């Protein structure tokens, strides 16, 4: 039976977790278990359960184990020297809340993070205990995302990782200089060595070379899930949903170029599944922090768009930004910006261009590109056909031809294109939500993500 103290903790430790952008429950397909008392499953595409008043998706119960931090990161509300109300959850309290929320279908699972309670090891142990209770006593088969505390003993990280679907270590500040200045106790070394450890273990697990480093029993007892991981025959023991991280945007003077280059390396060299961006919200005052009037939401949005171009559209970060051009254009989206700077590659003929080329056309996303490739197998495409198929031409019209012709009244001229694109209101969005790659966006065939 819940009581007021629990409600108080939930309020404090929920609010303290809100700056973590990640709430995705994606990457793991797992059927429910028929084991007595078991509950839960997981769907690879992720499921949104609610949206808060800021329009962000809620998929997981996102809470901190504790906000009672011994560290003193300047940008953080939980830092030691800040005067806020402190609270710490008992492991059983979080396990019970997750179970009860899940049962009512409020959530897909748990996202557990924490301030550094006494030491990284101590924190990791308490978090592990929470996950252990949830998996073993509550027999919970839903989604779990757990934060690894940088600097914690790898064995502790590993134990937690064997119970979780996804693990993350937040880099937060994009460069070593910013870290030293704003988060003096955090060391770039310990952040990256934790990340590297996790990605190394994931690789071993994928290739079947994963050896347990202790004698703890399998997380869900003898019924170790039949399809723990993506794909049914693919048994995985260590964070099958992969690793992610988060970068704070706008608290330091790191450029988009710095950020995107880092991101690209994380995807390519550390095999990260996702990098999240969180517009800095000036919640704390400190002379070393910028005094922003409001969080840089548009910049955050542009970074997400650029991030999608890296992951799904075959772009390299050097094509989007460089030293001389270090920040994303706020006026229109990064693909438009790239196209306008590379007009010699356009217009492309819809009936001939290959899939990868189509993907580079502004306004054409993966869904439209696939439709085009499929439909032109059975007949040549004109603008009418494209419209009927639901391909949105608003931005694409400046960059394509159908049967050799541009759309009527459209001039292929840099000034004309730039002027018209800047007029397009939709290019300045009411921030669509990139946190959860929603299946809806796929099903609806919308190109909202291109």
């Amino acid at each position, binding site marked *: *039976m*819940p009581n007021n103290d*629990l*409600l108080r903790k*939930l*309020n404090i430790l*929920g*609010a303290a*977790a*809100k700056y973590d952008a990640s709430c995705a429950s994606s990457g793991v397909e797992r*059927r*429910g*278990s*028929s084991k*007595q*008392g*078991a*509950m*839960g*499953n997981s*769907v690879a595409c992720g*499921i*949104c*359960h*609610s*949206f*808060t*008043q*800021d*329009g*962000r998706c*809620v*998929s997981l*119960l*996102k809470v901190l184990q504790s906000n009672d931090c011994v560290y003193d990161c300047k940008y953080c509300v939980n830092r030691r020297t800040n005067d806020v109300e402190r609270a710490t959850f008992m492991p059983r309290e979080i396990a019970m*809340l997750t179970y*009860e929320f899940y*049962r*009512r*279908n*409020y959530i897909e699972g748990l996202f557990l993070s924490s301030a550094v309670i006494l030491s990284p090891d101590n924190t990791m142990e308490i978090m592990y205990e929470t996950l252990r209770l949830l998996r073993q006593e509550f027999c919970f088969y839903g989604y779990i995302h757990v934060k690894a505390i940088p600097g914690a003993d790898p064995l502790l990280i590993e134990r937690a990782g064997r119970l979780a679907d996804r693990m993350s270590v937040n880099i937060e500040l994009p460069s070593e200089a910013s870290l030293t200045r704003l988060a003096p106790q955090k060391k770039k070394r310990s952040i990256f060595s934790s990340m590297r450890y996790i990605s190394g273990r994931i690789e071993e697990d994928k290739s079947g070379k994963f050896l347990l480093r202790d004698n703890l029993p399998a997380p869900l007892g003898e019924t170790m899930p039949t399809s723990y991981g993506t794909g049914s025959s693919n048994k995985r023991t260590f964070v099958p949903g992969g690793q992610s991280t988060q970068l704070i945007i706008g608290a330091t003077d790191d450029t988009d170029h710095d950020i995107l280059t880092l991101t690209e390396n994380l995807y390519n060299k550390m095999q990260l599944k996702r990098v999240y961006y969180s*517009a800095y*919200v*000036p919640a704390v005052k400190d002379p070393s922090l910028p005094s922003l009037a*409001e*969080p840089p*939401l548009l910049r955050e949005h542009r970074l997400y768009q650029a991030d999608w171009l890296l992951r799904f559209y075959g772009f390299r970060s050097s094509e989007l930004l460089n030293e001389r051009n270090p920040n994303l254009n706020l006026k229109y989206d990064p693909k438009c910006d790239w196209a306008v700077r590379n007009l010699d590659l356009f217009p492309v003929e819809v009936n001939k261009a290959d899939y990868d080329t189509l993907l580079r056309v502004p306004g054409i996303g993966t869904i439209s590109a696939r*439709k085009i490739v*499929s*439909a032109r197998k059975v*007949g040549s495409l004109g603008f009418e056909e494209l419209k*009927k*198929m639901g391909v949105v031409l608003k931005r694409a019209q400046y960059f394509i031809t159908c049967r050799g012709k541009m759309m009527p009244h459209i001039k292929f001229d840099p000034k004309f294109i730039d002027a018209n694109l800047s007029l397009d209101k939709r290019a300045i969005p*009411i*921030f669509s*939500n990139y946190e959860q790659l929603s299946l*809806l966006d796929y*099903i*609806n*065939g919308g190109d909202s993500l291109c």
Partner: protein
Amino acid sequence: MLNIYIYDGSYHGLLTSCFDAWKDKDIYSIRTKEENKDVNLLEKVVYIETDNEKAERIIKWVGKEACYEVQRKLYRVFLTEHPERGMYIFRYLKLLNQLGRNVENHLYNDDVRNINKLSRMHASETHRLYGFVRFEVIGNNILYARIEPDFNQLEVIAPYFADRYNGHLWIIHDLTRNMAAIFNGSQYIITEYNGNMLDNESKTEISFQKMWVEYLDALTIKERLNLDLQKQKVPLKTRKHLTEFMFKSKN
């Protein structure tokens, strides 16, 4: 003459109509009795008796000629309860017969568009329900949820929640259609249902609802407040059975 085929409202009935009307050049509509309100003089009505064998033959044929995905799509179109669904499915089947598997590439053909559009709308509501069905714990640990979806969804969401809450008891009640899916921990049935299960909620239930509502408030970043975006993601008309939107007015 315009021929109107009347079936019993089941999917098998609809497919039997398609089967029997296959060669009919004057087919005008395929409807259920309820949908067939006023008939004019030019119309001739044919009553179809559902034949499971004929229906299964069509389903198998679709699977062979196209694929499982297309089978699912047509079934979803049936579940939308769209007044034209009968003819949409009929014409799609004809097209499938004519073009074979290639039919799926004819994305700008109207018959193909209708099927794709309706099945997509249905699928997106299904997916939304996965996340937005809200259970309350009533009586002896029974999970009870009310929904009022635009389309008939019980058939497709029941297996999902059966897997998720395997071993638990639940009822999902579609108020619009007076139907419910009832799960006994291992199997579900779908049946007519008019009960009202929500007369007195326990203190425990209310306190968990309160925690959920306050939690969502705590999670909101006030500096990013964006009610338009929230409205776009959770349209007003879908909020009626969502704890987080109804709790305050209820208590």
